[in-house]
């Protein structure tokens, strides 16, 4: 396959993946041999993520991306704790290889797919706006591929209307899933209508900033739906099911009045407890103020037609 990149790609970015992986295992071996026990293995992997081969996309925004430090240090990932800094602190030891995604339900080729069989050798860079339901926002340079390409590969059967997703349950490695106090029911589940899932803006991401996803951002494979609140973009996916019924979703079950199935970014429909008209821009600083939130998070032109005729207040 031949393509012409719109921007120069550093040689490091096109180093074959197996060499990077070799380098990582070599370093891990050397560290172990030297008796270097200061850093846990996860921390080392987090510092040394494999570079990805990427190609730019016309769907990227030209906004300046939020710093890598903020993107990887300020996360909601309750499997690793409810604090924003908990995931960066606790996710390092998650084993993301080997990784299998079960694809089942109304598909022609159901089965347990190895991550390597799902993720293309070259992925796209998609610089997207990201809007959390808690009224803060980032701009994130994701790397990934359109969910539709995977769904087309496995063959969606004609009766299917929805796609359901499921996150890993592994209490041994996910401290938020063990102990007395559990803020949510596991597994974390999410879902999309089939036309939302097939939309070209909807991607499965395996990286950000040109490198494999850090664990706290949902490694090794997560959903990104840029016109919906962040919690729809489910992390560390282990199962994708095609179904004819609207699937249950985690935050909707936790607070049905506050979190709907659609959860499209909409400045005119407030969260019952706070306004969604404005957002704090991560990286703007204490005096940076807020900015108005855009309809469908700025993707109105691309996705508004999906909801033509729908009452977005009732279908929040």
């Amino acid at each position, binding site marked *: 396959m031949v393509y012409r990149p719109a921007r120069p790609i550093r040689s490091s970015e096109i180093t074959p993946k197996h060499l990077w992986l070799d380098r990582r295992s070599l370093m891990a071996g050397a560290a172990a041999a030297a008796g270097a026990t200061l850093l846990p293995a996860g921390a080392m992997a987090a510092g040394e993520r494999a570079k990805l081969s990427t190609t730019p996309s016309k769907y990227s925004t030209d906004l300046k991306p939020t710093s890598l*430090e*903020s993107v990887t*240090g*300020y996360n909601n990932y*309750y499997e690793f704790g*409810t604090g*924003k*800094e908990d995931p960066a602190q606790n996710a390092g030891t998650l084993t993301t290889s080997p990784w299998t995604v079960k694809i089942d339900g109304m598909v022609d080729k159901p089965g347990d797919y190895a991550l390597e069989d799902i993720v293309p050798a070259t992925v796209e860079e998609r610089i997207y706006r990201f809007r959390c*339901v*808690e009224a*803060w926002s980032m701009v994130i340079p994701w790397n990934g591929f359109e969910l539709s390409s995977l769904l087309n590969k496995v063959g969606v059967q004609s009766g299917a209307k929805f796609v359901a997703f499921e996150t890993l349950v592994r209490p041994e490695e996910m401290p938020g899933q063990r102990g007395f*106090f559990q*803020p*949510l029911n596991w597994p974390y589940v999410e879902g999309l209508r089939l036309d939302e899932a097939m939309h070209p803006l909807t991607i499965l991401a395996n990286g950000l900033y040109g490198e494999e996803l850090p664990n706290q951002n949902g490694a090794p494979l997560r959903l990104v739906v840029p016109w919906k609140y962040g919690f729809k973009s489910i992390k560390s996916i282990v199962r994708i099911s095609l179904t004819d019924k609207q699937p249950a979703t985690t935050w909707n079950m*936790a*607070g049905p009045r506050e979190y709907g199935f659609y959860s499209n970014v909409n400045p005119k429909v407030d969260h019952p*407890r*706070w*306004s969604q*008209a*404005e957002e*704090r821009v*991560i*990286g703007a*600083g*204490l*005096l940076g*103020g*807020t900015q108005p939130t855009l309809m469908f998070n700025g993707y109105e032109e691309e996705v508004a037609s999906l909801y033509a005729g729908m009452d977005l207040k009732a279908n929040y």
Partner: protein
Amino acid sequence: MTALSSLTDRLNGALKRVPVLPLYAVALIPGVWAFWQALNGTIGADPVRALEHALGLYALQFMIATLAVTPLRERLGVNLLRFRRMLGLTAFYYALAHLGAWMAFDRNFHWMAIVADLTKRPYIIVGMIALLLMVPLAATSFDRAIRALGAARWRNLHRLGYLAALAMALHYLWLVKSWTGEPLTYAFIVIALVGYRFLPKGRKGRGARSSAALGKPARQGTLGA
């Protein structure tokens, strides 16, 4: 004398030598530090939220400390009464700063948005109620006010502090996305401290009434006796 009561005696003796006035300034250092960190971008990725959270949490923590003075005296004989006014006023200052940070950095002095939030958002209304309940307490915190009101009326008025503390805990519980450990823990502590005031008198320990009447710590050692 039991070991416990001699320990509390020594503690009370040491506490008597701690000057109160400088503590008004010392108690504000964490808030100033949080503001400085927020301004310099070293408080985390979301400085507005982090600063609001820090100031609100300090207000709640000082409120809890204020409410703990009486049970500590009645149950353990530790006398922190000299510091109670400082603790309560500091809670009020932090609550004011918390409101100010929200209005300035979160709402950008956008008065329409502020008024909308103050009338529409239950958790913000509850937070505002907590602050308003603290105003008459702060306004009558000096000696002349106590004399003017008379001790009994002053004490009755200052029972508003229990409501304020409960409102603060509810405000915190209400603003988080799901039931999380920290606001729940604070709510339990506040409920316990306020609930303590409503225990039947006889169950407050033998030292309670005599020490309250004398304005001195309990000496009988309610736990050690």
